[in-house]
């Protein structure tokens, strides 16, 4: 009798836990409409115009993987997404979506209404890359032609991922964007995307940064400024430093490839005065010397390092000045850093952080180390 009771108990627990196992159901992979990317535009009457790129697999042997875009409208995001069933018949499968593109208009009105559904739904994932369309509509970017792969969203995804060795656009996924949006002492940023004409084709082109005030788009930074921004945010993994093109100490154009870079931000509180110390330590190698000047010996190398340090310092200082004067938005996360390091001081200034940020003094110290000169030890010299 006791045994029966125990068996019944175990069975009850097992059966009831089946219903507690979350969201799942049996579906065959070939029945899924796999969403590769999504673009959100403003439609008529304040509706959303949602365009999804769906992966299309045709033919079993020698199968061809292509994509098609479906556009639908709705009062809310989810409404628009569900209206898609009436167009294609298949339920969209969101877990493998790579990019979400928001048009400038939507972003300017505030992104919360758009991304709330994306964060809330169980099938969508927070590792999707977010993009803000600068010129063209989001749909145009998703329907543009791709150079390498058939599926545009995957191309865009690759483009964002490989920004690591270019550093002209920030790499921001939904999770990071949400965090920045909600966190205090930091303003959200997102990479910007444009259409560029090449050989008669319109190709997507990721460069620059979109700046948000709370959840509303307020402006864009260009690619070069973005690189400096990434320097300050200590996210530099690669990219180039160009010397000798803007009349610096060095007259020969030189390309320096960034190996690694470390930025330390240290708030210094002195009474009521807050200052930020920015320490940038970058290791580079010489990858290109467009002239006979010798940078290999100690003297030349020191000169080049010195020049690179000065250029970097000037550019970073000017970017901070520009942001302070034009936007008064703490996209660098100085406030968040202060909150980490000195909570009391942050509590004092947090209510008026924007004003404090505007007048914040930032001391920039840059250090550039040249490690090697790649495969050549000497500058190429002309033959006698």
């Amino acid at each position: 009798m006791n045994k029966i009771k125990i068996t019944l108990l175990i069975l009850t627990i097992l059966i009831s836990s089946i219903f507690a196992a979350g969201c799942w159901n049996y579906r065959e992979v070939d029945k899924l409409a796999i969403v590769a990317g999504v673009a959100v535009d403003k439609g008529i009457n304040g509706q959303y115009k949602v365009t999804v790129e769906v992966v299309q697999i045709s033919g079993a042997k020698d199968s061809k993987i292509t994509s098609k875009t479906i556009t639908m409208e709705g009062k809310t995001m989810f409404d628009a997404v569900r209206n898609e069933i009436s167009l294609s018949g298949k339920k969209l499968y969101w877990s493998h979506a790579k990019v979400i593109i928001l048009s400038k208009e939507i972003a300017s009105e505030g992104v919360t209404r758009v991304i709330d559904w994306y964060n809330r739904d169980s099938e969508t994932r927070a590792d999707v890359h977010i993009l803000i369309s600068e010129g063209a509509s989001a749909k145009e970017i998703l329907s543009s032609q791709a150079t390498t792969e058939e599926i545009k969203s995957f191309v865009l995804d690759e483009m964002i991922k490989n920004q690591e060795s270019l550093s002209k656009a920030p790499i921001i996924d939904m999770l990071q964007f949400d965090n920045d949006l909600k966190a205090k002492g930091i303003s959200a940023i997102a990479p910007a995307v444009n259409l560029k004409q090449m050989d008669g084709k319109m190709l997507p082109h990721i460069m620059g940064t979109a700046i948000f005030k709370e959840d509303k788009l307020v402006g864009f930074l260009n690619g070069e400024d973005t690189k400096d921004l990434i320097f300050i945010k200590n996210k530099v993994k690669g990219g180039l430093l160009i010397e000798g093109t803007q009349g610096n100490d060095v007259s020969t154009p030189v390309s320096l490839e960034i190996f690694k870079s470390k930025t330390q931000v240290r708030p210094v509180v002195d009474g009521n005065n807050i200052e930020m110390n920015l320490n940038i330590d970058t290791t580079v190698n010489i990858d290109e010397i467009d002239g006979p000047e010798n940078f290999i010996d100690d003297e030349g190398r020191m000169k080049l390092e010195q020049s690179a340090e000065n250029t970097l310092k000037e550019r970073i200082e000017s970017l901070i000045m520009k942001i302070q004067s034009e936007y008064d938005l703490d996209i660098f996360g100085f406030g968040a850093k202060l909150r980490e390091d000195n909570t009391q001081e942050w509590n004092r200034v947090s209510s008026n952080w924007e004003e404090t940020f505007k007048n914040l003094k930032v001391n920039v110290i840059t250090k550039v180390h040249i490690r090697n000169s790649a495969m050549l030890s000497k500058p190429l010299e002309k033959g006698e």
Partner: protein
Amino acid sequence: MFRKIKKIEPGISKNRNENNNCIRTINLNKSIVNNILLFKNIFKDDDTLIIREFENKCLKSAQCCIIYLDGMVNTESINMNILQPVLGSDLSNDIASDNLLEELKKKVIVSNNVILETEINKMVSSIILGDTLFLLEGYDKALIISSKNWKTRPISEPDSSRVVRGPREGFTESIMENLSLVRRKIRNPDLKFKFKEIGERTHTRTCICYIEGLALEGILSELEQRLGEITIDGIIDSGYIQELIKDAPYSPFETVGSSERPDVIAAKLLEGRIALFVDGSPFVLTVPYLVVENFQASEDYYNNYIFATMNRLIRGFTAVTSITIPALFLSVVTYHQEMLPTPLLLSISASRQGVPVPTSVSLFLMLFVFDVLREVGTRMPSPIGQAVNIVGTLVLGQAAVEARLVSAPVVIITALTGIETLINMNFIGATIIFRNFLLLGASFLGVYGFFMCFIVLYLHLMSIRSFGVPYMMSVTKAKNHEGQDAWIRAPWWTMTLRPKIVGTKNLVRQSPRKGKEN
């Protein structure tokens, strides 16, 4: 059902006892004619019984008779060592002796083993075993003269476990030869052999073999007790006994080990295990048997220990994956597509285009087909082997995919699982049963169902014991020396102690090497 059988049992044994008693009650007569008649009666309708009557050339009163079974004896030896001396020698001097039979035994018969016997039961069983019975007029006793010589298979490398490096001899069907193979490896009087006849009708000889001072008495007496409880009519192979004495009788996992290799049995005896030889079976049983022994190949101990460790890890890994891979694949592909990398999802999706059979059904189907092919491969006569290969690979693999009956990943998973199953032949039955069990769970509930069934499997393994020793012992313990011979095969110089529990009585296997101890 079992209770019913128990109720009937006493009745059966009663019958059997009556049979035995009717022989035992009769004793030998002093008249040789009567005695011959008696044996003729016992071996009625057995035409292989040969009765040869003769007398000494000098002493007519010495009427003799030998009785043996044709085909079981060495006739040449009987002619040379019994008939010739008894017929030819001059027995007239010994007539004075009041015990001629004793004199014959002492002086005339040339044989290494002659026993004076009075019990008719033993005489009968000796004749059956191939000995010759010698009767003499005027005596109610008889001589049993050893003359066994039946045909046995020569010692050869066992097909079930071949090695590249290591001894190439294997057990045969003859118990005495098998014992000699082990005896030759362990030359020590502490190696004990205890015979016991099992099988009410077959009287199969079995032999418990152990090393005194290493084997635990508790396990030994438990084994003897379990063997004593067997009341089956016949033992044809050691598999009968294996099943009759095993712990967890409903489990597909074996808790009694078996091996065809003398080196394996010798090594297990040295670890403190107990071996059971069964006449007529080249498979010798060992107890206690733990799960790790499934993964220990004899070659591990003869090869380089790093290589051996690698091989053992492969065996352990495939043992787990051969059970889990189909279920995991199914649950990820049909329930948790978000867990797949995007390119993989796309290629799996592409391969499933136009396939009408659901993934779960096609997995069950293909695994069933593989099992059919495997069974055909073991059962069919070898000349037809090629046909099975062609049918298996071409028709069922390639053609099924091309005809869009199943998708290519399913075929790959099936092939992978099937090959992995064959690595661990020791528990192939359990693998197949639990693989389908997990697959069933996964097809209904995805990863959740998979883990639910996997936990059942794990708890089951944890609950089994083999002769008092936990079955999963050494798998779960890596402390001290217990893990030395489980997942890895430690170098010989570090294995100074025997496996615990099994060899608790005398743990020290070797003294630590100088300079190596720490």
